[in-house]
């Protein structure tokens, strides 16, 4: 009898503690969930993004290069992520025809709007770099890229003085039909390693990795590296691009500055 009562009292105590911790924990979870969706809290947390961008840029000498690896470091497979490749007829037939119809349209706040074929881009001076690609999810792969420096394009189209960002318009869409897009500012756009890549590991850019043209912006995470690019647009503000945050993932809560 006594033992039983003791046991049941102990059980009661343990049960009570469990229940209490469950209440506390689920209370905490609910609190953090609602704080995560609270606009004021979020704009407070967003202060860190600007702080990170300013501090990190202050610490980085302009035009300093990201580490370039050796051929032996190249990952066996360059992992692809994000939306599936475009499946439109135009895209697939053009892919089979070595991108004879595809053109890169450059417009917006530029003195010389232009349009380039893949052959045009390949005829320009190129840059080759073996760099590490870091996904926001946490993984990293190393690949060898060849492409034309974005500054090369910038020199040709001559952006107006009020052009502050380059917006990348892409051909891939999500399941709701929203097109991918991204943006970087002029500081990153003219970085020596910021290239529009058309080759990966000495072969034409594979469809999974963004054929025919993708961005490499080595100071930022993978989601900034727009794939399946069809157009560049120079703008003074990101307010009217997409939902105003400057990118597909940015519109879903990710930071515009992805250097961290």
């Amino acid at each position, binding site marked *: 009898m006594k033992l039983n009562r003791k046991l049941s009292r102990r059980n009661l105590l343990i049960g009570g503690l469990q229940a209490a911790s469950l209440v506390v924990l689920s209370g905490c979870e609910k609190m953090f969930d609602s704080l995560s969706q609270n606009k004021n809290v979020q704009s407070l947390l967003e202060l860190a993004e600007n702080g990170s961008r300013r501090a990190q840029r202050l610490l980085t000498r302009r035009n300093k290069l990201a580490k370039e690896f050796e051929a032996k470091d190249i990952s066996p497979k360059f992992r692809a992520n994000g939306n599936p490749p475009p499946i439109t007829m135009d895209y697939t037939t053009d892919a089979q025809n070595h991108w004879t119809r595809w053109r890169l349209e450059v417009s917006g706040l530029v003195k010389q709007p232009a349009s380039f074929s893949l052959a045009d881009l390949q005829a320009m001076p190129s840059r080759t770099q073996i760099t590490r690609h870091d996904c926001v999810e946490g*993984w*990293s792969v190393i690949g060898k890229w060849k492409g034309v420096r974005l500054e090369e394009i910038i020199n040709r189209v001559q952006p107006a003085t009020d052009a502050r960002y380059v917006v990348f318009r892409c051909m891939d869409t999500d399941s709701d039909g929203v097109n991918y897009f991204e943006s970087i500012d002029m500081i990153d756009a003219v970085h020596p390693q910021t290239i529009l890549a058309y080759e990966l590991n000495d072969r034409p850019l594979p469809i999974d990795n963004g054929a025919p043209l993708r961005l490499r912006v080595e100071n930022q995470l993978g989601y900034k590296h727009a794939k399946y690019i069809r157009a560049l647009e120079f703008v003074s503000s990101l307010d009217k691009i997409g939902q105003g945050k400057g990118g597909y993932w940015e519109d879903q809560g990710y930071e515009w500055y*992805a250097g*961290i």
Partner: protein
Amino acid sequence: MAERPAKSPIAGHLVYRHNRITRLTHWISGLALIILFMSGLQIFNAHPYLYWGSTSDPDKAFLSIAASQDDGDVRGFVDLYGRKIDTTGFLGVQQGVFGPFARAFPSWLTVPGYYSLAAGRRWHFFFGWLFAISGVVYLIYNLAVGHIRKFLFTLRDAKSVPAMTAYYLHIRKTSPQQGEYNPLQKMAYTGVFVILAPLILLSGMAMSPQLNIAFHWLPALFGGRQSARTVHFILAFGFLFFVLGHVLMVLTQGFLNNMRSMTSGWYNEKVPVVIESTAQASPPEAAAVSSKQEAEKINEAES
């Protein structure tokens, strides 16, 4: 000058142990650590694998937390160097409204509870800044006023570690403690300030692509970016164990007294003589000793 509260009726004497900056940064970094740990697990959940080196070749993960399905039964596993540990009910799989789903760390351990890498990152970086800033403020101030040396672990302290451990384990009756902090406390705090905190900040920064450009040595220090990520993960658990140990000690070694010292600054320090021989100690003598020490301590703290 801090005001002196009325003398406590408990045997011992009040010392002004924690200055304002220490108290403030203690609570800020405590809150930050909780949120950093939980939002860090949220971020980890986006890719619940760990590697050594620069890259993350899928078959080279030494640790993974995943769910696998056999015969319709979804089970959670932790795979450590090829050794599979069934963790159903805690890690790898979680029960949801629509049945079990794969999730490395469960909702109740992450911030936010629902899956959101974007939100997890926002929490993490904001409180990362807060943690780093409060740590720097703490260090600068306390180096300046000389508080740090009170708990800086030295070779002499190392010698009394076994004795202090024996004392905590009730094997030894007298505490070898000299000064405000005992050797094990000094070891724990020095470890946190000299090893854990700097390394967790550096390994976190070693994951930033921009900082990798600014400081090529940063990821190299850890043996590559993925190694830095792994080190960051391990150190987070180092902090967890420190915090759990810290809270346990606070709870068992005079909860109210400790809470008072970390809120108002005043700690009731018992004189060793009083603890050792409760029956024989003559109160007036103890009080005389204590008030002298007390005066010294207050002068020191406020100078």
